[in-house]
């Protein structure tokens, strides 16, 4: 029907949608326009600044050019630190998320209380952003890489636990039944019938989260939690725009590197 639609458009008695569908569409459009109007009308911005912004941005961009590589050694060191934050935090989070996933999957949870505890951990970890976790842990551990690692870890547990829990819920139950019939204990059933089935999802999710964590680690420094963000913040505070652009270029390279590595690992392992 879709493929003949443009040609039939010329007939005057044809319409593509039923009345109800059309009302839904116009309703959706009107609602969107209304929301945009409301937002534009009441948002607290100084419109002169808005009209002036293209010039401001051009100006800032001009000051960023050309990038200044003189501070490259310490930038690279901070990048290395960023990679370490992402890697260590992902590793620890993966280990911690396993039991959480186990108790928050419908088919493996020992009881309802455990299920709700597991879900609570997942939701609270996932809903609080890395930066907010970082604010908290910088207050606790003081500024530095440790607060960053813990923050990334706390955020990752929810993500990993949720996806792994879903993978556990999707396993084929038949091997579990077979091992129950053999008289295997619960732990051995997990080891032989559940772990092998969840393995591919486990690696896929861990690699995915590592890639995301690499990105997240780049901003930790802005709240004092280590990594390349610290240098970026320093350069911005001292209006050293050529160094800012150098840092941005390095971050870009890091992220592209992360994507290449993770897609290579995905292909290799799965």
């Amino acid at each position, binding site marked *: 029907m879709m493929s003949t639609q443009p040609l039939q458009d010329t007939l005057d008695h044809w319409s593509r949608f039923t009345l109800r569908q059309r009302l839904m569409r116009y309703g959706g459009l009107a609602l969107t326009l209304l929301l945009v109007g409301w937002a534009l009308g009441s948002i607290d911005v100084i419109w002169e600044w808005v009209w002036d912004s293209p010039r401001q941005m051009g100006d800032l961009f001009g000051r960023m050019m050309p990038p200044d590589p003189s501070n490259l050694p310490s930038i690279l060191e901070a990048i290395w630190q960023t990679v370490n934050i992402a890697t260590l935090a992902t590793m620890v989070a993966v280990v911690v998320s396993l039991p959480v996933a186990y108790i928050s999957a419908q088919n493996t949870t020992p009881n309802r209380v455990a299920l709700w505890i597991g879900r609570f951990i997942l939701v609270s970890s996932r809903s609080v952003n890395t930066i907010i976790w970082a604010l908290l842990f910088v207050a606790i551990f003081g500024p530095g890489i440790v607060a960053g690692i813990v923050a990334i870890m706390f955020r990752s547990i929810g993500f990993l636990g949720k996806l792994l829990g879903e993978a556990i819920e999707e396993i084929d139950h*038949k*091997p579990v039944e*077979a*091992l129950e019939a*053999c008289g*295997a204990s619960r*732990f051995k059933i997990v080891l*032989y019938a559940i772990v*092998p089935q969840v393995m591919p999802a486990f690696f896929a999710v861990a690699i995915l989260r590592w890639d995301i964590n690499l990105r997240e680690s780049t901003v930790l420094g802005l709240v004092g939690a280590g990594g390349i963000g610290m240098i970026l913040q320093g350069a911005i505070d001292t209006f050293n725009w050529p160094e800012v652009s150098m840092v941005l270029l390095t971050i870009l390279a890091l992220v592209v590197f992360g994507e290449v590595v993770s897609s290579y690992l995905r292909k290799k392992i799965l």
Partner: protein
Amino acid sequence: MRGRLALVRKTIMLKISKLTKHYGSGDPVLKELDLTVEGDQLTSVIGSSGAGKSTLLRCINRLVEPTSGSIDLNGTEFTTLNRRELRAARRRIGMVFQGFNLIDRLTVMENVQSGRLGYISTWSALTRRYPRDDIRHAYELMERVGIAHYANKRADELSGGERQRVGVVRALMQRPEILLADEPTASLDPKTSEQIMSLLRDLASELKLPVIINIHNVTEAKEYSDRIVGMRYGRIIFDDLPEKLTTAEMDEIYAGVPAMDRAAVGASVGAGA
């Protein structure tokens, strides 16, 4: 040669009495069912879908919890065991499944050794360092059923018939006192399914192992069994030698089955003959 495979033991006896199973509030699936299996017999349980064949088999090792009645395997009353005792008792019952129920991503050897999980330590299960006796036993059994050269292959690389052989070896690794097979050939093509049936028959007599098979295909049941049990609506309405199963009794076992399905059963009888 076969001495190692066969265990010297007294005559095996499984005695089921007054077994009843209710699911929810509906009609019971099994109604006060009595059945005794002994020695090295191969017993086939036939009946239309919903007759209670699968529930009966799963009640024996309590994969399905019976509502009432008694299951006695060589003096052990199964229905009253607690979880721990049940785990130990289940090792004595081997089970083969319609869908093979293998762990696809593990090797054939790991699948086979998973039959020993009730016996070995958690550490050797985790590190895959199985006891020498178990490995020797596994190779012997795999050789017997013709899959020894697949030990290092992943289970999902095998064909259906080969996978079911792995399932059979896994069950035999338990050194079971009785073997249950739930539609072991229903997922296989006719030729492979005959091979599996004759394998089960031969193993029953070689290992002096009673085998109970749920089966759809009446022709196969008649050809390979020592005894046929016909079930209908949760009761046993036929229990005799295969040659005693006449068309009239078939009609009774499968009565009320829609004409299409009956035609299918009839066709399989005709095709096998």
